[in-house]
């Protein structure tokens, strides 16, 4: 892509990809009016062997795929380097690799590019911990060589007032598996675009996520899974809770099974728990199928309130209403949060969820 490209197609809000997003709250990230600073808030901590972290200059870091997202196009033009984490072929990294981002500043935007590459048969878990005051547009790419296995956890625990737009794009080759767990509990506006592109047979992905939006928060998670080769498997499971006036979440699950993708097995699920009036959850699963020769393709989406029967059952054992609600909400998220596999993080998130619920005036 030319560095001189200037004819971006600034979204108007009528485009399918932008129709839910409050453009006014993007601080100009979408139309080029945002002032971009020169920050690098991402840091790397690990001493594991076979793992390399380096910042590769923009000129040397060509992206394996084009992007049609205008914000990501701007990021690719604007970021000076690509923070690149490489895990050598046949390396099994036992310890969790942490990338922490403590963003500090709402006055100018940060454009950030990150790439995580796994060599053939490599295996790793990477956690990206996002905290602080963010005004961030971020392009994260994953390249999984044949037989590799990556678990990627991204935690959006931003302070109030933060804006975060990101694309997480995974290219998954033969027999490789990609698992992502996305947690969005903080920030004013967060829009994440997790996408997976299968390029080799036998590849698989599991996209999991939880989000909890309270008063005034807008959290959008828009998936795209591209089955372009035969015999790949995808699973999507996102769960969200909403409470408070103006809390708004959007979940879009686009799955595309191309004509060549025989033997595809896909299922996507989104469940939302509405904890108060004045909150809105949009949930749109969408399957596009070009071949009938598949193992399975399904989706489900539900949005509901507290189940009176569950609350009654718990309360009939002496548990008071606020505790019963807390148990039910924790239980709702538990299935996905435990997948993180780190007790400290899990406890911290569950405590945060308790606090959000308490703030929502249960």
């Amino acid at each position, binding site marked *: 892509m030319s560095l001189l490209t200037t004819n971006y197609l600034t979204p108007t809000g009528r485009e399918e990809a932008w129709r839910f997003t409050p453009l006014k709250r993007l601080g100009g990230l979408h139309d080029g009016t945002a002032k971009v600073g020169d920050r690098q808030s991402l840091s790397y901590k690990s001493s594991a062997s076979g793992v390399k972290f380096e910042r590769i200059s923009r000129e040397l870091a060509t992206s394996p795929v084009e992007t049609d997202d205008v914000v990501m196009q701007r990021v690719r033009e604007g970021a000076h380097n690509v923070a690149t984490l490489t895990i050598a072929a046949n390396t099994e990294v036992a310890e969790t690799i942490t990338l922490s981002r403590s963003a500090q500043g709402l006055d100018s935007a940060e454009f950030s590019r990150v790439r995580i590459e796994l060599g053939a048969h490599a295996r790793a878990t990477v956690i990206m911990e996002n905290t602080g005051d963010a005004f961030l547009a971020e392009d994260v790419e994953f390249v999984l060589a044949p037989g590799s296995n990556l678990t990627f956890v991204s935690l959006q625990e931003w302070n109030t007032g933060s804006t975060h737009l990101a694309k997480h794009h995974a290219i998954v080759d033969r027999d490789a598996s990609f698992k992502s767990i996305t947690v969005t509990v903080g920030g004013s506006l967060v829009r994440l675009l997790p996408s997976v592109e299968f390029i080799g047979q036998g590849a698989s992905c599991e996209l999991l996520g939880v989000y909890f939006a309270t008063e005034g928060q807008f959290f959008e998670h828009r998936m795209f899974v591209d089955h372009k080769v035969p015999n790949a498997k995808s699973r999507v499971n996102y769960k969200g809770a909403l409470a408070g006036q103006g809390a708004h979440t959007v979940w879009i699950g686009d799955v595309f099974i191309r004509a060549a993708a025989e033997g595809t097995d896909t299922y996507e699920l989104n469940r939302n728990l509405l904890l108060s009036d004045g909150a809105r959850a949009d949930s749109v699963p969408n399957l596009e199928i070009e071949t009938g020769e598949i193992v399975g393709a399904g989706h489900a989406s539900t949005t509901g309130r507290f189940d*009176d*029967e*569950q609350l*009654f*059952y*718990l*309360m*009939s*054992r*002496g*548990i*008071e*209403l606020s*505790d*019963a609600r807390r*148990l*039910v909400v*924790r*239980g*709702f*998220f*538990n*299935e996905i949060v435990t997948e993180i596999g780190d007790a400290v993080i899990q406890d911290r998130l569950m405590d945060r969820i308790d606090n959000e619920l308490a703030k929502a005036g249960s």
Partner: protein
Amino acid sequence: MSTLEIRGLQVSVNTDAGAVEILKGVDLTIKSGETHAIMGPNGSGKSTLAYSIAGHPKYSITGGTVTLDGVDLLEMTVDERAKAGLFLAMQYPVEVPGVSVSNFLRTAVTALRGEAPKLRTWTGEVKDAMEALKMDPAFATRNVNEGFSGGEKKRHEIMQLELLKPKIAILDETDSGLDVDALRIVSEGVVRAKEANNLGVLLITHYTRILRYIKPDFVHVFANGKIVEEGGAELAEKLEANGYAEYVGS
């Protein structure tokens, strides 16, 4: 010594088509140590009685009183009734996804006792209670009632009865869906709870077989939303032989 007193209880259920009256004036007194069996045809309102006493939000009390040791239960929230000493073993125990049995039990006992139990002794109590009901210890880590078989759910209810030590327990068809061995195991649990805590029991059932293990002091026939006859254990035998024809359709 505790007394649950139900006087002239009238209850309706809220439906899309408006309120429908189900209970039409129920009078019943249950004291510590007593066992009362309620038998009656399907749809006569037995579960409605159980749920109304426990405070299920689906039902509206339109008349009458329910007191435990003179204190008005109907004014209390559901959890307050449990804290006052009431327990309901449900006909259809509810699944609570993502909440483990051990977490649920610990939360409940903490609420009932007003303080967290000592971890070591509590773990032992739970283990013993599970063993007594021949439940695999693995149930402690499973989610509440999720994927439990019908019989497992009922054992889990009675295990809670033993652990939570109420004063008065209402058992709504705890015997339904149990195999012969499970019926005995569950019944023994109820009898243990009676002996340990001088529990008063209101036992709703369709069958006399559970009454062989848990001997009723009183049998009440329930039809059309009220008690229509009362007697001793021999009444249950008569009902099993003759059915409810003489009480309904009048």
